[in-house]
């Protein structure tokens, strides 16, 4: 009697064993994710961090803004007071502390735009870039030199000296017109415009006054 009962139970033993295994395997799904090791592996994160590919120069950015490139999104990582004092036209303010919060995520986690991060220099922007790169956000760029380089090259470009090559003058004229686009007034620019037509002024009109030949007095008898 006992043996028969035992045999009955034992005939199920494989099924029970299989069930236990399946249950254990199923429980793996409910394990919490290993939160610490999020994102790409450290080796590729380091390689990406070293590569200067992420940098965009202030001139390039100015060119894009003036050309009204619809694919760019500029993000200001500075504190709100600094952002309100001055920001690059079209920029959105997300302070560095908030980039990983929901507010930052909505802007940073997408593929549609080319996002340009900037801060006072590029130190904080680089940090933000490296964190975002680790999580796997795409299409992020960093304004090289940040606000300082924006001011020194686009808003207030240095005047090239006479010894400089022609490219320096071309660059200067681009930067100057860019800065005028961003609202800087140039005294000399206005003067130049005035001076320009002067040399074009018509040369003195010499009206050839034909000398009338003295006529021998007519008449006479």
């Amino acid at each position, binding site marked *: 009697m006992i043996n028969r009962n035992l045999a009955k139970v034992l005939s199920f033993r494989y099924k029970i064993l299989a069930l236990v295994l399946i249950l254990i395997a199923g429980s793996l799904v409910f394990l919490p994710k290993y939160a*610490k090791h999020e994102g790409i592996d450290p080796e590729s994160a380091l390689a990406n961090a070293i590569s200067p590919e992420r940098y965009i120069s202030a001139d390039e950015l100015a060119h894009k803004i003036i050309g009204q490139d619809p694919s760019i999104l500029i993000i200001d990582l500075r504190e709100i007071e600094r952002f309100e004092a*001055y920001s690059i036209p079209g920029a959105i303010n997300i302070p560095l502390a908030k980039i990983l919060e929901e507010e930052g995520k909505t802007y940073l986690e997408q593929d549609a735009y080319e996002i340009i991060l900037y801060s006072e220099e590029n130190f904080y922007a*680089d940090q933000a870039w490296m964190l975002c790169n680790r999580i796997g956000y795409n299409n992020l760029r960093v304004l090289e030199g940040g606000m*300082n380089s924006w001011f020194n090259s686009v808003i207030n470009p240095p005047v090239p000296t006479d010894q400089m090559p022609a490219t320096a003058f071309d660059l200067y004229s681009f930067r100057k017109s860019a800065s005028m686009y961003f*609202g800087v007034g*140039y005294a000399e620019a206005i003067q130049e415009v005035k001076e320009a037509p002067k040399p074009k002024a018509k040369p003195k009109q010499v009206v050839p006054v034909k000398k009338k030949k003295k006529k021998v007095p007519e008449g*006479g008898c």
Partner: protein
Amino acid sequence: MKELEKTKRISIAAVLSILIVLIALLNYQRPKYLYTQNTSKTLTKLLQTDYLVTTDDMNGNGTELIDVRNPFDFEKGHIEGAVNVYAPELLSDKHADFLERIKKENKTVLIYGQDPDQALSVFMSLCQLGIGEPRILSTRNFFEKDQLITESVAVEKEAPNVSLFIETSVKNASKIQNASQAKKTVKKTPQPKQVSPVKKKKKKVPEGGC
């Protein structure tokens, strides 16, 4: 007969599962470096900005000084006591023992490069991997007459007030514009239309006659 078939099936299944486990074990490689800090923890660490140190804080015992510039520049000149860890080679086998030691002893690591920006990538890696206590030496290192010059720099110094600059430039420009316009109006008066005076000769009544 039936019993035999059953055992056959079971043994085949057992062998297969053992094989799978073996293959999995053989293929399993523990990654050499694992993050110990997630991104939000790293960010809070970054926001404290106490990781930026100056050369005055350098003379501490039990600290390691890391030079992340390339070996060529390192040979040319480096801060005394520095170890050269070229940034791209940080996680290679070359420096594995070095990093292991730092991790074990939980040393403070001072990192410097040409500028703080260059040291940042190594700093971020060490920070997220939890190796030692990384710090950035906020200095600029450059060569002048083949001599290494170390100069303290401020990180993220504020840009000049751009809106103020734009306002003043516009004001100045409009001032000069007004001035030159005034000049223009003055100038206008002495410059009357140039009329070339072609004197009409009076028709002379033919002279002569009796």
